[in-house]
């Protein structure tokens, strides 16, 4: 391969000639869009069936459809949110076969036969899940957009602690993790809340964790 610097210089000279561009060592590809013309293939469609909040669902989907878009756009379960679509925010968190995942980074067709729980499956406005009620009581949200993901994550976090799964802040890897403030905050860190309700969310989760302990 030719030296990258030389290659770039020649390309730049060729493409933009005298156009001023101070001190660039490389040139964005956008300047040289000479891709061949292609005709795009038709979408590949596939049937998939899974259970969402206890109800069997059968869908015929473009293979490209994420689980998140299947829920939001096809099943109209819009409680799961699309904050980034790249696994960087956690707003799309749902529980699949007992484990929380980012539904934006999972293809719907890969969930054949799975049991999926979304925020809509945890409780309803008239009959809130204890975690939902605790979020209301502690004002563990503001704009509400990250909230379903936070709540799904919180429910799963308490299960993970109960199952003895350690975290980054677990001091003793051989011990049994507790739902301490530090543990909960570390485990919830995949759910970003830009409104900054973290302190209240931690209190909501602590209340549910304490209640669960007693039970």
């Amino acid at each position, binding site marked *: 391969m030719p030296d990258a610097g030389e290659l770039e210089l020649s390309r730049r000279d060729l493409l933009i000639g005298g156009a001023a561009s101070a001190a660039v060592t490389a040139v964005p590809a956008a300047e040289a869009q000479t891709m061949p013309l292609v005709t795009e293939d038709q979408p590949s469609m596939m049937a998939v069936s899974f259970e969402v909040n206890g109800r069997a669902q059968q869908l015929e989907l473009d293979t490209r459809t994420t689980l998140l878009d299947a829920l939001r756009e096809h099943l109209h379960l819009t409680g799961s949110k699309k904050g980034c679509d790249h696994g960087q925010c956690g707003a799309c968190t749902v529980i699949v076969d007992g484990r929380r995942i980012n539904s934006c980074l999972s293809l719907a067709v890969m969930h054949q036969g799975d049991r999926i729980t979304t925020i809509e499956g945890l409780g309803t406005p008239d009959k809130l899940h204890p975690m939902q009620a605790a979020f209301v009581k502690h004002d563990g949200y503001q704009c*509400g957009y990250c909230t379903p993901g936070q709540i799904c994550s919180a429910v799963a976090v308490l299960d993970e602690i109960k199952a003895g799964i350690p975290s980054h802040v677990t001091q003793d890897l051989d011990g049994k993790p507790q739902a301490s403030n530090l543990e909960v905050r570390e485990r919830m860190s995949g759910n970003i809340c830009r409104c900054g309700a973290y302190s209240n969310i931690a209190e909501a989760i602590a209340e549910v964790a304490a209640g669960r302990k007693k039970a």
Partner: protein
Amino acid sequence: MKFDTPAGTNPIDQLKVIGKPTDRIDGPLKTTGRAPYAYERHDVAPNAAYGYVVGAAIAKGRIKSMDLRDAKAAPGVLAIVTAENAGKLGKGSMNTAKLLGGPDIEHYHQAVAVVVAETFEQARAAAQLVRVDYVRAQGRFDLAEEAKRAPLDGENSGEGSAAPPIDRTGNFEGAFKAAPVTLDATYTTPDHSHAMMEPHATIAAWDGEKVTLWTSNQMIAWGKNEVAKTLGISKENVRLDSPYVGGGFGGKLFLRADALMAALGARAAGRPVKVTLQRPLIANNTTHRPATIQRIRLGATPDGRLTAIAHESTSGDLPGGGPETAVSQTRLLYAGENRLTAMRLAVLDLPEGNAMRAPGEAPGMMALEVAMDEMAEKLGMDPVEFRIVNDTQVDPEKPERKYSQRQLNECLRIGAERFGWARRNPKSGQVRNGRWLVGMGVAAGFRNNLLMKSAARVRLDGRGVVTVETDMTDIGTGSYTILAQTAAEMMGVPLDRVVVRLGDSDMPVSAGSGGQWGANNSTAGVYAACVKLREQVAVKLGFNSADAAFADGEVRSGNRHAKLADAAKGSELVAEDSIEYGDLGKKYQQSTFAGHFVEAAVDSFTGEIRVRRMLAVCAAGRILNPKSARSQVIGGMTMGLGAALMEELAVDKRFGFFVNHDLAGYEVPVHADIPHQEVIFLDEVDPVSSPMKAKGVGELGICGVGGAVANAIYNATGVRVRDYPITLDKHLARLPAIA
């Protein structure tokens, strides 16, 4: 209702509903995923097609040619709109750059096309097939470089933060020269991204000449005007509906590309179209808080009285844009006879700078409050005491203007006591806790209170249900709940008898959400409408409205009482009014105050910084709902911590764009960064602000807190970092040597 004299006693003072920590009435919907956000309105547009926005690949230049053949031929594609086929478009008066670029490109990721297809997957794939040939032009991307020739420029942020190009009181230069103790330091803050969790999103549908936008917008009436102006249609033909907004922080104050591209796409496709800005596009496509370079000079007597204060700030923006008003608070916050503020504006070809939570004060206080800390140390004074000594109860530039309320000293004193400030070692770099260096920092918080006209309509039906309608938005602020509380208090009904409808431009025009003006003004608008409704009810039930009391679902006077619902038995009663302000805002300086206290720990090995405790003591008028107000403050504290420790849009100065343009690259605080946060509200009512006697708190929390974090880090390490964010690399080399 005109508000031009300070409020006397009124029904709000009963405080049966107002002032109580109240769960949000929209909480059950939000926590169960039933609150519908813009992109989720399957109910109103079941057959919406999907639009996907193509952003410009260069920062400055022009489009030489666009090849849409492959994209048009792709499966499912219904339409592609570019500047070439969009028809004549205007530009909103609040937009600096055009929302649809081409042939000229003004900034990176400026929208150049929207591809509309049957499905999201098809639209996204086809958007990749749009081929654009650009000609790149020389751009200006380096603030430090352009600052050298930046001219003076004044600005009013429109959010209570303003300064002229240059502003002098007394003789700064003389006083600074003569001062026995001086400080001259320069601070920088980087570009910040709002990074609200809900991306900008809109569903647009045309019905003949009329377009409806289900969108995510903080300022409905502004948006309606701007849509009309940009599309060249009459305002009457535009409707916006935005009942739930997934965060804004100033990023959704204006019409943005999602709404325009959805409207254009829907017109071209002949059916409703939904568009969300994909996350990697948002940082460069939309607005951001501009970076600043701030020089602060302070002069004081040995006993700590400020005699000279100068604050100069330089920021950049696209041609036609404005400066970040980072010096605004320095005109007001501390006493001192000789003062100078100045702002300079460089022309940059980076994306558009604009308002982000507390524009002006947020970055300005990050510099000023560190300068105050540095000066206190030079004076050998406690930084709490130094601020208290320099308190002023009047506008220092116009001493005849008093503050309507100013309890900054109380905030600082109470905060110091609650936080255990006395335990702070005034000498920095002394306290160790295992591997950690530990320190405490303080800063004042300051943000103005703004008065804006705000209207509402209130209905009473035969079941005694009160319905509030206004185009006010709830962007997480708690508007639904405080408006319901206001109506409940005024009409004497329990909270669950009030329904609140927000965000529809067909409803009366409110103050909207921005500049922490939403709560006080929009509730005052509902107050005004309720006063009218009470008069109607009194007439209907045969009471003298002046002495009728509304309580427990009844209207009472002397020993007569009647059911409120009976007033609307035959037909619904409807009242509409607005709050409008006289010159109390001019006569009095209206501001909100806080004392921010922070404890930070710095890993003596790695330099990693973790905040351990945070406290804000706030004085902000009557607190309408202490529960949601507290949330507003901790939210500001969290965003301020982000600005202090990690947030920075990294500029590629060669190609002119923000490189870390997603939520993995642009780090904002996560749960693990945020300890338990304490907020204390001082008991305060401000009869000068409105009949509600309230002020804003939505931005107070972010103002100053970054400075408190910085000061805590300095107290821990003894290393002063003046360039935000304070990341470990900036103090690593100066930390104590490792064993």
